[in-house]
């Protein structure tokens, strides 16, 4: 089984981080994984995305063109990538910034979460990405929550480790949204 994901959003929304967590988590589960970033020409801001592949076999192309899953944290990203999601795939998008879904994709599971507002409720407006990731995991089950929690320790630099509990709550919050 090979599962391919795109995480996309404005620079600064933390899409690279959630992609890395997916990949790291996958690796911790003994999978073959790749993570690949892509930036716009802006120095900061603008949009950015990353491709993640989680597979049972050695990964071929790390660049995902037709994802099984998409996490889109802003409007332009949803616009750009939603059409390429495979039938049967999962899309989680940030309803805080996206009022209207640009396209009709009945054959994919589409899930909007108000990441910004939810994050603020958790007391830190930076963890919207983690909430979205939690929701995505809940829907796709591509990697287990525990593996992502373990991955946090590896991916976050030491000086951010105090934020791990917060991030874990955000993950769970997101997961709960789709479970609930």
């Amino acid at each position: 089984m090979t599962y391919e994901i795109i995480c996309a959003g404005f620079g600064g929304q933390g899409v690279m981080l959630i992609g890395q967590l997916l990949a790291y988590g996958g690796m911790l589960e003994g999978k073959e994984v790749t993570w690949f970033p892509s930036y716009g020409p802006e120095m900061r801001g603008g949009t950015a995305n990353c491709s993640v592949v989680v597979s049972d076999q050695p990964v071929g192309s790390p660049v995902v063109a037709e994802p099984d899953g998409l996490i889109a944290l802003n409007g332009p990203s949803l616009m750009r990538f939603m059409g390429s999601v495979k039938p049967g795939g999962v899309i989680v998008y940030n309803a805080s910034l996206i009022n209207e879904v640009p396209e009709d994709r009945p054959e994919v599971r589409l899930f909007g979460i108000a990441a910004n507002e939810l994050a603020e409720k958790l007391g830190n407006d930076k963890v919207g990405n983690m909430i979205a990731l939690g929701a995505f995991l809940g829907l796709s089950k591509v990697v287990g929550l525990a593996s992502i929690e373990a991955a946090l320790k590896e991916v976050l630099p030491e000086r951010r480790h105090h934020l791990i509990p917060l991030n874990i709550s955000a993950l769970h919050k997101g997961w709960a949204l789709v479970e609930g």
Partner: protein
Amino acid sequence: MKKIFAYPRALTQKRTHYCPGCTHGIIHRLVAEAIDDLDIQERTIGIAPVGCAVLAYDYFDLDFQEAAHGRAPAVATGIKRVHPEAIVFSYQGDGDLASIGMAEIIHAAARGEKITVIFVNNTVYGMTGGQMAPTTLPGQKTTTSPYGRDTATVGYPIRVCELLATLDGPAYLARVSVHDPAHIVRAGKAIRQAFAMQMAGKGFSLVEVLSSCPTNWGMTPVQALSWIKEKMIPYYPLGVFRAPEEVTGDDV
């Protein structure tokens, strides 16, 4: 009501790719204002560097050439020799001008090449993600001086104006800053002066502008301006380092 502060004609309407609060944008505007002021838009040719300002040609409504990293003074020389009546300026960062392009800037200056150089000193390689530059301050942390610039092993920052001032070729050399409105006004005057010098055929002119890189300094834009004032200016004193007699008294 009269418009007392307007969008300069020499800029296009394009939004820049610079980070929020990056003073490259201020310097662009000052250059454009000088060009408007001197009414030379139709005969000015710019040289974009390789650095954060690599897309400068998108923002200036001027003929432009994109130079290889560090080689803008050579490119400017080629253009100026072909069109001596044109006003030719390069816009360069500190990595571009003071590291890889050191030979080119010194020799253009020594030749008294009749070009104008806008030298943006932000103490780092902005575009490539904040590596150490020749102008990085002692102790300053960058991605390639992660333990802080250690002068014992990697040496000392280079003061470009002071270096060029030992040559006979330059006609005008000044260091300015854009960390507050008053200094921005002075910076604008210096830039105008540098262009005027070229128009008068006096020789090489360069304005070093102390500029911020909030992204790679890891600061807010506002903090970054204070850092210019508190850390950079003491190391890089502002002033005019070379001027023909008639402008020595300038308040820049």
